[in-house]
């Protein structure tokens, strides 16, 4: 018999009630009582006492932990988004776990007991999860609607037999998640309702294909066989939500190197530019969105991973004009200065500076365009005073023209050898491979210039107006994110290319956007994972723009 088990067979001579630790520290073998009648009575009595105490302690511990967990859920229930998150079958949201684990960990320290506590915690979590009303869960609602629709259709067809349910994933849906989250629920729901029961040997076949199309998630169930005269189709759709996205959403870029791209939210259409900036000093970037309606700030809620509106500021009124008319070509720029203020400009002629601390939106000097830079690198001492302010490179704009002119070409002369007269975007970079400047010229070509060498065009064709330079995979090499050069209303694509000096590099990541165009892109850190996060805005015909998150995931 192992020593540990032996130890547990014997009770301590004098149990201590001071701490749990002392209580579980049983006496060693040398101090065991002798085998006599009194001893046997003593042991029986002690065993009874011990088991009663153990039961009592467990009950107290359980109720305390449960109370703590319920409390945290009740607190969180104030935000409707959270209630939808905590309802996964057998799973509880991260913040709930944290609260509970803290509660438990304060009472235990021994290794074996940690395992016990863990198993107890999981059991308790399941109990809590089962008590939460899951009607707010979008997946549950979708399951319910699907099962109702199947029942209703089979009832109208006069064929309420058992069905052989097969669930498969289509575009934008992760097959594994579907198998884990949706299929068992649908089966359970049908079984619970009882009208149409799932049966793997049934002749009536129900093939459910779950896929995303645009901003909706579709469940298309084809019913065939059995007593049905012909195939019948049931369609249930739901607006794509964060819960659905997280529960069922697939990674469209799967299989391409190590980049993960996922949809993280919706923004109102009309986005001109986005910028990630840490406004609250918590090291997590907030999202600044420049749109046709003004500047809107969003913060990421860590509990739900949803972007919630923080503040909105209209464009400042200009003197002498009620409002500025939007030109045919809609473009906007955002940047952050050294004092953490947000500067913005649009092709309509808006030019503003917004201070988050004072919540004031003020007009700034007209025709100045802030071109956000990934890192502040002054060209020279003299130039840095005039051309740079914080992480902004200032340029000049003509109303209605998406091309900008460099504010003082002379200040960059010699540093950027062949900088075009008019450009769409420019960024500087200082890395091991000595890339200094990259820009998109007015003809749509992507140019790069390395330190001490001539300008090159690493891509053969034309690209979109805006691009990003970032070290996405953390290898110290710079990558460029460029979009395709399709015009407004045409399909778009995103390519990540490695700028290591190779001519015509093939993209290390590529993602198509057949139904929309990328209207804005920004880089920053939104999840504190020490990797660069890129947010992209895809806009099409709909009333909402889709926010995507691109990240390197080794």
């Amino acid at each position, binding site marked *: 018999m192992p020593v540990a088990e032996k130890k547990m067979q014997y009770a301590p001579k004098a149990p201590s009630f001071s701490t749990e630790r002392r209580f579980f520290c049983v006496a060693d073998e040398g101090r065991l009582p002798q085998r006599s009648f009194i001893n046997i009575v003593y042991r029986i009595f002690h065993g009874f006492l011990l088991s009663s105490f153990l039961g009592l302690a467990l009950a107290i511990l359980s109720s305390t932990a449960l109370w703590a967990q319920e409390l945290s859920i009740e607190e969180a229930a104030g935000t409707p988004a959270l209630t939808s998150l905590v309802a996964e079958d057998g799973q509880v949201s991260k913040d709930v776990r944290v609260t509970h684990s803290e509660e438990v960990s304060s009472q235990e320290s021994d290794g074996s007991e940690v395992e016990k506590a863990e198993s107890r915690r999981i059991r308790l979590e399941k109990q809590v999860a089962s008590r939460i009303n899951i009607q707010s869960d979008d997946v549950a609602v979708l399951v319910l609607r699907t099962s109702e629709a199947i029942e209703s259709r089979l009832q109208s067809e006069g064929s309420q037999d058992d069905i052989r349910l097969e669930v498969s994933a289509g575009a934008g849906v992760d097959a594994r998640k579907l198998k884990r989250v949706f299929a068992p629920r649908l089966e359970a729901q049908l079984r619970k309702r009882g009208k149409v029961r799932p049966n793997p040997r049934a002749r009536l076949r129900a093939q459910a294909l779950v896929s995303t199309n645009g901003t909706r998630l579709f469940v298309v169930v084809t019913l065939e066989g059995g007593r049905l005269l012909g195939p019948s189709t049931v369609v249930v759709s739901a607006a794509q939500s964060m819960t659905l996205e997280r529960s069922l959403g697939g990674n469209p870029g799967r299989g391409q190197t190590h980049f993960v791209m996922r949809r993280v939210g919706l923004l109102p259409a*009309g986005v001109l530019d986005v910028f990630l900036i840490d406004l609250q000093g918590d090291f997590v970037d907030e999202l600044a969105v420049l749109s046709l309606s003004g500047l809107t700030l969003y913060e990421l809620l860590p509990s739900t991973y949803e972007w919630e509106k923080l503040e909105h500021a209209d464009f400042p009124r200009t003197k002498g004009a009620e409002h500025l*008319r*939007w030109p045919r*070509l*809609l473009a906007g720029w955002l940047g952050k200065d050294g004092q953490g203020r947000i500067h913005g400009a649009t092709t309509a002629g808006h030019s503003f500076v917004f201070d988050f601390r004072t919540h004031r939106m003020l007009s700034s000097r007209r025709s100045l365009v802030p071109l956000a830079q990934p890192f502040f690198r002054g060209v020279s001492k003299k130039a840095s005073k005039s051309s740079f302010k914080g992480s902004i490179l200032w340029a000049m704009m003509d109303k209605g023209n998406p091309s900008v002119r460099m504010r003082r070409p002379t200040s960059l002369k010699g540093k950027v050898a062949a900088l075009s007269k008019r450009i769409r975007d420019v960024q500087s970079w200082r890395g091991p491979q000595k890339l200094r400047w990259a820009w998109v010229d007015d003809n749509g070509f992507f140019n790069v210039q390395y330190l001490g060498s001539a300008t090159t065009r690493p891509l053969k064709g034309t690209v979109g107006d805006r691009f990003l330079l970032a070290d996405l995979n953390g290898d110290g090499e710079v990558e460029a994110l460029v*979009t395709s050069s*399709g015009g*407004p209303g045409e399909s778009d694509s995103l390519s990540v290319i490695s700028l290591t000096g190779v001519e015509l590099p093939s993209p290390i990541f590529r993602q198509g956007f057949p139904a929309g165009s990328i209207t804005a892109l920004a880089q920053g850190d939104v999840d504190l994972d020490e990797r660069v996060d890129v947010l992209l805005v895809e806009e099409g015909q709909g009333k909402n723009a889709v926010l995507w998150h691109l990240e390197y995931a080794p």
Partner: protein
Amino acid sequence: MRTQKRKGVAAQFIVVLVCMTVVHPTLARRMPALGEKVTLSLDSSTLAGTRHAHLFLPLLEKLGALEQREALAYPAIKGFSPWRSQVIRSMERTLASRVWLLEPALAPALVERSLRRCLAPNQDVPSWPADVLAKAEVSVEVESAEKGIYLRFSKPVGPLPHLLAGCVLYSSHGNSSGPYVATSRGVLTGRQDALRGTPSMSLLEFRPKGTDADVVLGGEDLSERQVVSAPFPDVIVLMQSRGEAQKDRFGFKNPERHSSFRKAIDLDALVDVFAIGRGAPTLELLPPGLVPARKLRELPQKVNPLPLRLVPIGKNAPTVPIAVDANDALLTGTMERLRVMARSQGVLLRRHRTSVRTEGWSLIRWSPRSADPGVALLDLAAHNDNLELPRADSPLFFQLLDEDEDTRLQAALQLEAQWMAQGVVIPLLRAERWFTLHPLLKRVRVRDDGMLLVSDAHWGATP
């Protein structure tokens, strides 16, 4: 040997020189660039309208399929989607569309003057909306007030947005108000201070029809070029005066003879020869696009074609004047065919130059200038004297400008049927109005009145 070598070098030099001077139309990118050029090859009648459409800003314009961001930047007038305007901010109607209140987005005096010039009868400035209102015996008072500009009509005018689409903004000096200005060389250049910004195509060069250009009216149907058509087709109509309609020389009132006539004239062949197949015979005056799908009138199918034979013609042979636009190949070709058919009936057709068609026949290409069927028929009647409207006290007369869209449509179909029963209107063909475009030219649109607009156009990315 040396000479040959020199020639070779010269040839190479020329090739290099040509390569250097041949500039691609543009190198485009996601957001269009400014300062581009486009060439347009148009006929003389379309040229004037196209220039006018680019030089003057319409009071209202219909833009349907816009991207959401563009729709937000240039929103439709509240309650009147898809009508948008850079001149009028909002519109309200009261007293069953008898009184309209327009809130101007620009100087009210400018807008008021433009409205008056467009809607009130004016001999100096031709205006088809004013003609439509005059034909419908509607008078208008334009008055500026604190709230905006009031339009008080003597009768309800429901389809006012359709009429305002035919009105333009006149600037204080009568100069252009649109996105382009005319230059002395005949080209149009983009305005720097245009209300919606400088257009991407900042230089429009017009060329005579038949020459190569980026935009060609009725150009050859080549696979590498794009084709855009007007929202609704033109209708080739044979119009008869009252007297000629009563004589009914071809027997149009008799369905069998009408059918024989159509079989003999062979309209399909005319479309194939003169409109490269872009059209079809029709029995209806109102083309699809103006009216919803409806059951076509039916004529007997199994009839013999009208016999074509050479008959002797005496001195007293009847002669009918026919007015035709000589610049239109389809009209001229149809007229020639009609002449042969009339000759075999013992009638001489004499080509007439005047556009006033009170006597005889006229063969016209009707391009409806409005998508509203009531307004379109009133416009047609206003410019063709032999087309009479119902009596002023009849309900049909009022219904053509009714507030309710369905009532207007119903009235238009009734009027169309009346005209065709009288024999004054014989629809022959539907002919498309199309333009062929350079494959990289994007976002060219054609207005309801068939005018092509390149104000929002840009060059697409290099393939």
